[in-house]
């Protein structure tokens, strides 16, 4: 683990840019950082434990109580009821059609055979026969592992949410493409939607729309809307000016230009946005099942309550499979549409003929699945249970081997890093941590960071959860530090060895897409309910993105530069530390920023496994009406923490000349890019 020292060595302030090696005017920044920390520690040693604004688990302030009352006045209005009924009607009729039995009939209107045949046909129609086979195989897997109904439910909720996302998102995308003022306003809203922990708006959505499918659709929509708006908007705006000028000379109106030039030319980007929206929607599967949203999240969650890792793993992997299937289908569809638009590739008449002919076996399958019970309800198999049992026994032996090491590691990180830092951040009087954070923000992020830092800290203070916020900030920093250690070690390794890259990519994709609730059980078995458990869960979720970004960044370092270093006789170690990493600084900053945001996204889940603080407050507020205000305040505190860190990092990156990290939104939506690359 010697390479670990490559990561920013100043343990006390991870999240900062790597030590600047370029000459800066006057005193280097890291000297300032150390000075501030030293000052902080000196004042802390006299004042620790005073004015920390700590609030115990069941306490709340008047502000929170007032907020709860305000939240309580929402609800029961005809508009939201109407929307809920409308969504319910759509989902219910689709479920009755293809997923759930409609009593006294023992099966849905169209049985599994018919549904599989139709889906396969659609796969062929929008893409090609390879996709058709993938679709058929996925649908058969749903049934064979015993989750037919839940899988189809998930598809229904996902596709209905995506449908709404397109209807709402596409006009917004056009709006932000046409007006930069609108773009600024909309982007702010999208930032909020993506950083606000879902559990927080669950509180509102449940009050407004009741429980079940409507709430699931609306929560999913809120989370899945940003990618399509951002990516499509970007695509439409970025159509080549030459093309626009050429057609403008023909005297077209703005509308004509949009419909005839910009949208068609941005087709590929728009479908990419759609693809990202679908994947974001899928990642809401588990959260939606907290309020009885239909789908594969339900068996995952119920396995968690039974402590049955294997039983959660199977539906968890089916969610991943659904993701692969939808991702590949939309990608192939976009490639096909591109090809057809260029007028190449196929004879449309023959294709229509083939598709028509194929309708015959599809119709037979649909018809048959209405009458024969085995074609209507998927025959029971024991595949699911036996896979679960194998997974459980594997997990048992792995955890028992790792048990002692795990305990030592947890103690090392907790006593060595987590506790001292928490003591400094959270046991300082609020004004001290406030001043310390502000100064650090300015030193690291420069003058541009002042306004966002001051604003965020002020509002966090007003939300009355200062102490809990500092505890979360501390865990976030430690988790990000670990993420970056992994990011640098594995990123560099992957960039330097093609074989490692090929072997790791699928694992990384898996880590990003498998629901966190699945691996909570083994992580809990190893580390017990502690902050460290929450950190491990967050690292599993965040590290893949960071590793990929670092790997891509290091690989992009021009071979000539590396070659030049080699010719002067530098060792591998020198090559990595003196050439590759400094040259990839932009990627390192971006990876750190993304790592932080991913870690923050896991705060609430951390609250479920012993991390307490804001995550606990959010879940507490969801379940108890009288604490709804506290839960809301906790959610907002998480958002503000995210915005503050993001802005500081971004201006730090600009100062370092690394170019601004991509907007959080576009990267937060998970990609399956690696599946394609590895496949």
């Amino acid at each position, binding site marked *: 683990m010697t390479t670990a020292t490559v990561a920013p060595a100043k343990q006390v302030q991870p999240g900062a840019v790597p030590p600047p090696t370029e000459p800066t005017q006057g005193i280097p920044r890291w000297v300032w950082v150390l000075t501030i920390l030293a000052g902080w520690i000196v004042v802390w040693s006299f004042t620790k434990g005073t004015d920390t604004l700590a609030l*115990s*688990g*069941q306490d709340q302030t008047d502000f929170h109580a007032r907020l709860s009352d305000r939240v309580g006045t929402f609800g029961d209005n005809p508009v939201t009821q109407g929307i809920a009924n409308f969504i319910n009607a759509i989902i219910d009729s689709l479920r009755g059609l293809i997923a759930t039995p409609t*009593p006294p*009939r023992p099966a849905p209107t169209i049985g599994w*055979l018919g549904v599989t045949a139709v889906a*396969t046909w659609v796969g*062929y129609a929008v893409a090609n*026969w390879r996709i*058709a086979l993938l679709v*058929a195989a996925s649908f058969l897997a749903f049934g064979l592992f015993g989750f037919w109904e839940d899988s189809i439910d998930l598809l229904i909720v996902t596709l209905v949410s995506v449908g709404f996302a397109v209807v709402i998102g596409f006009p917004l995308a056009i709006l932000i493409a046409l007006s930069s003022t609108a773009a600024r306003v909309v982007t702010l809203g999208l930032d909020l939607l993506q950083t606000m922990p879902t559990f927080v708006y669950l*509180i509102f959505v*449940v*009050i407004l729309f*009741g*429980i*079940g499918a409507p709430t699931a659709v609306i929560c999913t929509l809120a989370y899945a809307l940003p990618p399509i708006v951002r990516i499509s908007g970007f695509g439409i705006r970025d159509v080549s000016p030459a093309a626009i000028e050429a057609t403008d000379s023909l005297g077209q109106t703005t509308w004509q230009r949009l419909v005839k030039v910009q949208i068609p030319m941005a087709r590929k980007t728009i479908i990419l946005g759609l693809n990202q929206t679908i994947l974001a929607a899928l990642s809401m599967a588990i959260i939606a*099942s*907290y*309020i*009885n949203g239909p789908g594969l999240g339900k068996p995952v969650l*119920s396995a*968690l*309550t*039974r*402590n049955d890792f294997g039983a959660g793993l199977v539906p968890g992997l089916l969610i991943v499979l659904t993701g692969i299937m939808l991702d590949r289908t939309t990608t192939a569809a976009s490639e096909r549409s591109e090809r057809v638009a260029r007028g190449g590739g*196929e004879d449309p008449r023959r294709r229509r003929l*083939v598709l028509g002919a*194929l309708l015959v*076996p*599809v119709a037979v*399958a649909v018809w048959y699945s209405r009458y*024969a*019970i*085995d074609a*209507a309800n998927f025959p029971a198999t024991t595949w699911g249970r036996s896979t679960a*049992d194998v997974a459980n026994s594997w997990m048992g032996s792995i955890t028992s081997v790792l048990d002692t090491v795990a305990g030592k590691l*947890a*103690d090392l990180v907790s006593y060595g890093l*987590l*506790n001292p830092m928490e003591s400094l951040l959270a046991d300082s009087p609020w004004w001290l941590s406030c001043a310390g954070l502000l100064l650090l923000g300015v030193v690291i992020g420069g003058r541009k960071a002042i306004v966002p830092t001051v604003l965020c800290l002020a509002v966090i203070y007003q939300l009355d959860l200062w102490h809990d916020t500092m505890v979360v900030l501390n865990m976030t920093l430690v988790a990000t530090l670990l993420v970056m250690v992994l990011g640098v070690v594995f990123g560099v390794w992957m960039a330097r060895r093609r074989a490692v890259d090929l072997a790791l990519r699928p694992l990384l994709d898996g880590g990003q897409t498998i629901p966190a609730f699945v691996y909570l059980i083994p992580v809990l*078995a190893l580390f*017990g*309910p*502690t*902050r460290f458990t929450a950190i491990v869960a967050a690292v599993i979720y965040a590290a893949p993105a960071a590793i990929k970004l670092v790997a891509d960044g290091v690989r992009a370092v021009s071979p000539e530069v590396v070659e030049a270093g080699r010719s002067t006789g530098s060792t591998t170690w020198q090559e990595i530390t003196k050439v590759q990493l400094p040259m990839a600084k932009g990627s390192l900053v971006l990876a750190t920023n993304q790592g932080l945001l991913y870690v923050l996204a896991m705060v609430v889940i*951390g609250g*479920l*496994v*012993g991390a*307490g603080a804001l995550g*606990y*407050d959010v*879940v507490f507020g*969801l*379940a*108890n*009406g*009288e604490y*709804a205000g506290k839960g809301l305040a906790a959610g907002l505190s998480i958002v503000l923490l995210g915005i503050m860190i993001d802005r500081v990092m971004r201006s730090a990156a600009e100062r370092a000349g690394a170019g601004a990290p991509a907007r959080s939104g576009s990267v937060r939506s998970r990609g399956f890019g690696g599946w394609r690359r590895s496949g």
Partner: protein
Amino acid sequence: MLDLNKRWAGLAALASSGVLVLTACGGGSVGDETKANEEKIAEAGGTCGDFNIIVNPWVGFTADAYVVGAVAEEKLACNVTYLDLKEGGPSYQALKSGDGDVILEEWSHAEELKAAEDGGYAQDVGSPGNVGIIGWYVPQWLAEDHPDIMEWENLNDYADEFETSESDGKGQFLGSDPTFTQYDEAIVENLDLDYKVVFSGGETATVQAFKKAQENKEWLIGYFWEPQYIHAEVPMERVSLPPYEEGCDADKSAVACDYAETELKKVARTEFIESDSTAAALVQNFSWTNEDQNQVASYITSEGMSPEDAAARWIEENPDKVEAWLPQ
């Protein structure tokens, strides 16, 4: 140009696999089963219709819900739906909106229940027979090795042993799920105990912690409760706190006594329970013991049965109890 032969090969594969599946499928017909279901409804006497059971996320509750659900489905031919919801707010929201008909194991959401009764949309319909016992527990090995730990007065002598990375140099007391009724922080403070309450965050986390503590002989004291399936698997003992007296928990910040034993409640949607659905009578008659519930729960957890199978097995083993629940 696309390779046409390839395309036709793909088509042929698709079509032939379709035909294969068709011919392989035997089994009964949907029509037969529909008829059987209709007969069952006629036989049940009175109609049931839709019956929506709320399921809160702990195994004991799953046992309640699936046993009642299985009886409703099998004997009354109801169309049962299970709604997976967090307890408290979301569950009451379901009663209010009419999506859910009954909460079979309500512990302590007095505020929500009162709001429901005032609003007229749901009401307390008696007890499922279970008694809820909340308390401070230690793993059995600890109770055996240090018997005096079972009295709260001696807890401070052992505070060092319970110290963890999370407890700031004090003893760690493991709190539980944010949604559970708990005021351990107040008890610790008011009894002058040298402990810090650390919240596990969920039932799974708490169960794992006790399991591990018993297996590895680790020191652990924490919030636990009955009925809970893990008691059968992981033995633990309840520490005695100053006994509960009426009203000693009135002011939650001044509590210095043990938790009250609570008779759990069934809370049903008013319109549902007053309807002539046969399921309404079943809900009112349903009553069993903590042992019954733990039995079903252990089928689910220790034996890995699905909730449906576990419920069916218990129903088969206890025909008399089930008979008593059916509407007369």
